[in-house]
């Protein structure tokens, strides 16, 4: 009965929050009216510089994806947001209730950052030449019309052609969830940026490899050489100093977007049906969820396995209290546990493995292996420390070697102490893997970002993501609980205890 009540309550909350997404109206018509209001802008685009003088009292909120800004606007967290006209066109297609202010806030040119490396100068020359040529030949205009002016998310698509596998690799950082520049259809990346880079590669004989990473990471990651091209960068004064930028490859106005009245005459239930269809059925998006879940499970299981082994090995080495080894282990433990997981991952991805071609998934596995090894090490320290010294002495006095004593007497008893902690740490590990999207891994959370960036709706994608995490956690916890029962010496049957004994009294 209690459970039923909880479920009902949860359902009511969910429906209420769903309904809330369709509210609030703004009457703002002119840019000056926005002074003193709360305005959102995407991190690292620097659009706000263009209008800061006109509305000095406005407060600025920074969001990672354009999609988040729409959600923020609809849930009244902000009064307006600033976006390039192109982006708005894409958004308006799915969100008729959005309205742009007629007056443009400014015009912005977009460039490509060229990453550090031996080929930096050559790439810069080549890409500038390509931009110039395509402007002259009308290719730029043609692409802009296709992706922007006549934007239709149902139809616009560019398939990445095949390239000579021997051609020089060109690593390209794109947002990946940013219509119409880079986004996913049926699991394959497409968009204006993608087409532009692909055409460039065809012309100059490169083989492009696209990696979707958070927008605010594109510039720094490209600058330190992780990628050759970073797409869609606004050339601010500061940036021109610190990084190598191409000529603008397109330019457009930036506009303020506010919420307006729009009644599409569709009932709530119908709306739910449509958004379900958009989130899971259309373009086979459920497959992306499956794929993302697979990545999350892979990272979790691999880190669990390697982390457990690594933590165990380190403990075995440090067990005898060698001061030097313990000092080293203690230092790394302190370093890794003291750092936010996301910072650790980014350091691994951009600094330590900055120039290696190791994929984000492997780097996540390395990162979480280190983190879980620290947990495991601590668990063993606490668990084995809780076993009385008498147990060790008694076994040693009988003639057990140090190793036999540890594996046959200490560890089985310690396991009973630390397995419950192990289970908890494992659940936190699963949850923590949700940040691997920061280093271009398409895990479950990142997939839900991708889907949301296409549907411009949060509800089903987020709920489904949460449910999948619960299920994965539940299954793994169950497995550990079974192990816990299995290895609990006190739950063995008489037959098991007396295994191999023919006659007993």
């Amino acid at each position, binding site marked *: 009965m209690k459970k039923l009540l909880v479920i009902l309550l949860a359902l009511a909350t969910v429906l209420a929050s769903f309904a809330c997404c369709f509210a609030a109206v703004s009457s703002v018509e002119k840019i000056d009216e926005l002074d003193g209001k709360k305005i959102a802008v995407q991190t690292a685009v620097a659009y706000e510089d263009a209008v800061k003088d006109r509305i000095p009292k406005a407060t600025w909120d920074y969001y990672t994806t354009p999609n988040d800004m729409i959600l923020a606007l609809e849930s009244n967290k902000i009064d307006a947001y600033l976006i390039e006209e192109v982006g708005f066109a894409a958004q308006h297609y799915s969100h008729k209730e959005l309205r742009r202010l007629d007056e443009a806030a400014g015009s912005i040119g977009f460039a490509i950052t060229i990453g550090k490396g031996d080929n930096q100068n050559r790439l810069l020359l080549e890409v500038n030449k390509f931009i110039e040529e395509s402007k002259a030949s009308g290719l730029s205009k043609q692409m802009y019309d296709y992706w922007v002016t006549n934007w239709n998310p149902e139809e616009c698509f560019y398939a990445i052609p095949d390239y000579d596998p021997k051609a020089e690799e060109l690593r390209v950082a794109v947002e990946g969830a940013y219509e119409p520049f880079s986004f996913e259809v049926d699991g394959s990346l497409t968009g204006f940026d993608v087409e532009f880079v692909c055409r460039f590669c065809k012309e100059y004989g490169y083989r492009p490899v696209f990696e979707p990473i958070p927008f605010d990471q594109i510039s720094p990651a490209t600058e330190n050489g992780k990628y050759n091209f970073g797409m869609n960068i606004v050339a601010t004064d500061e940036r021109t100093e610190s990084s190598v930028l191409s000529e603008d490859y397109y330019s457009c106005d930036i506009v303020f977007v506010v919420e307006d009245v729009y009644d599409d005459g569709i009932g709530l239930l119908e709306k739910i049906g449509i958004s379900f269809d958009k989130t899971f059925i259309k373009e086979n998006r459920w497959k992306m969820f499956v794929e993302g879940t697979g990545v999350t499970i892979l990272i979790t299981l691999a880190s669990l396995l390697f982390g457990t082994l690594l933590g165990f090995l380190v403990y075995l080495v440090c067990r005898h209290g060698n001061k030097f080894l313990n000092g080293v282990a203690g230092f790394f433990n302190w370093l890794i546990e003291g750092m936010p997981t996301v910072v650790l991952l980014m350091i691994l991805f951009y600094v330590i493995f900055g120039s290696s071609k190791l994929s984000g998934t492997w780097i996540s596995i390395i990162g979480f292996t280190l983190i879980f090894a620290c947990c495991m090490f601590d668990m063993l320290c606490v668990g084995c420390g809780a076993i009385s010294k*008498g*147990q060790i*002495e008694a076994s*040693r*006095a009988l003639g057990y*070697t140090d190793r036999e004593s540890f594996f046959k*007497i200490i560890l089985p008893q310690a396991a009973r102490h630390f397995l419950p902690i192990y289970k908890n740490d494992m659940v936190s590990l699963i949850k923590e893997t949700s940040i691997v999207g920061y280093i271009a891994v398409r895990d479950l959370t990142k997939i839900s970002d991708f889907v949301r960036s296409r549907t411009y709706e949060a509800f089903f994608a987020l709920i489904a993501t949460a449910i999948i995490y619960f299920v994965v956690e539940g299954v793994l916890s169950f497995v550990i609980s079974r192990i816990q029962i299995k290895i609990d010496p006190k739950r063995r049957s008489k037959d098991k205890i007396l295994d*191999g004994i023919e006659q007993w009294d």
Partner: protein
Amino acid sequence: MIELKHLRKEFEDTTPLKDVNLTINDGDVIAVIGPSGTGKSTLLRCINLLEEPTSGEIIVNGEVINSKDCDINEVRKKMGMVFQSFNLFGHLTVIENIMNPQITLLGKGRQESYDKAMDLLHKVGLASKALNYPDELSGGQQQRIAIARTLAMDPDIILFDEPTSALDPSMIGEVQSVIGMLAKTGRTMVIVTHEMDFARKISNRVLFLDEGGIYEDGSPKQIFEHPQKPKTQTFINRLSSLEYAMNYEDFDIEQVAEDLQSYAEKHLIESERTSKVQLAVEGIVMNNLLEMDIEPKIIVRIVYSEKKDLLTLTILYSGQHWDINSSSNILFLSLLKEPTTEVMDERLEIPEDGCNNKIVINFKWQEVE
């Protein structure tokens, strides 16, 4: 045969063993006694290297076991140890506690080690507990199983580290009788204990430890009945009685009260009687004898007889006789008149310990009516 040569063990803040030389012959049953903190357990733990000696040699059957060439694990297989806190393996059943070391260390088969374990469990009277876990058993039962576990390895030598100290008085007997049984099998045994009666009955040699080494070494009869050296004498006497021999000025009533307290606890004497004794000592010694203007000797002796349940205070003093009934202490006088108190106050014809006056007060257990 075990030989200890110039054995020294230092800890950070103390040096319990300064220079120990000892030869233990095969078949010896040795009781190690002495005040606490004199390194009895340390000595025992050095013999199987649970404590690494700071210097000196330990030679077992001709092999120097604290040298680097010696495989200590092989030595330990032939040298069992029984601990004060039993230390049975908590995750294993009783039968596995006895079986597993045989399987792991001696390479025996499961059936063979099971049979041996059951045989030993029958001997210590716990065959019915084979499938119980240690924490389901009483202390005495656990200790008997710990002994069985040690015996399963067929050791030549068994070390007992205060095997009954952690036990309820009611369980000491069962463990002692198992050890007593073992002592008759001809194994070499070294037992650290605080149970003097037990030590006397079981051993053929007693070591008294003090001053960082073996202070006195002798037969049980010698150590317990005729100790040769002063510290041994004091130790042995203190166990059965409290005795103070001193001048009037030195008499420390606080010390007496403190000793009386712990003596009473040890012999399970109820506190009413203890305070009566204290009152009597104060009444006689402090208030009266000490006020007399003389300089004689005084001996105070307190003895408890378990058989008669009688607590006896004996005070001997030299010089002029003093009648206790002439005391000015009213509380003391009323104590003397109580029905549970028996008083004897006499002048001795033949002086005892150089004193010619003797007061004996017996305190009986007060029956509840």
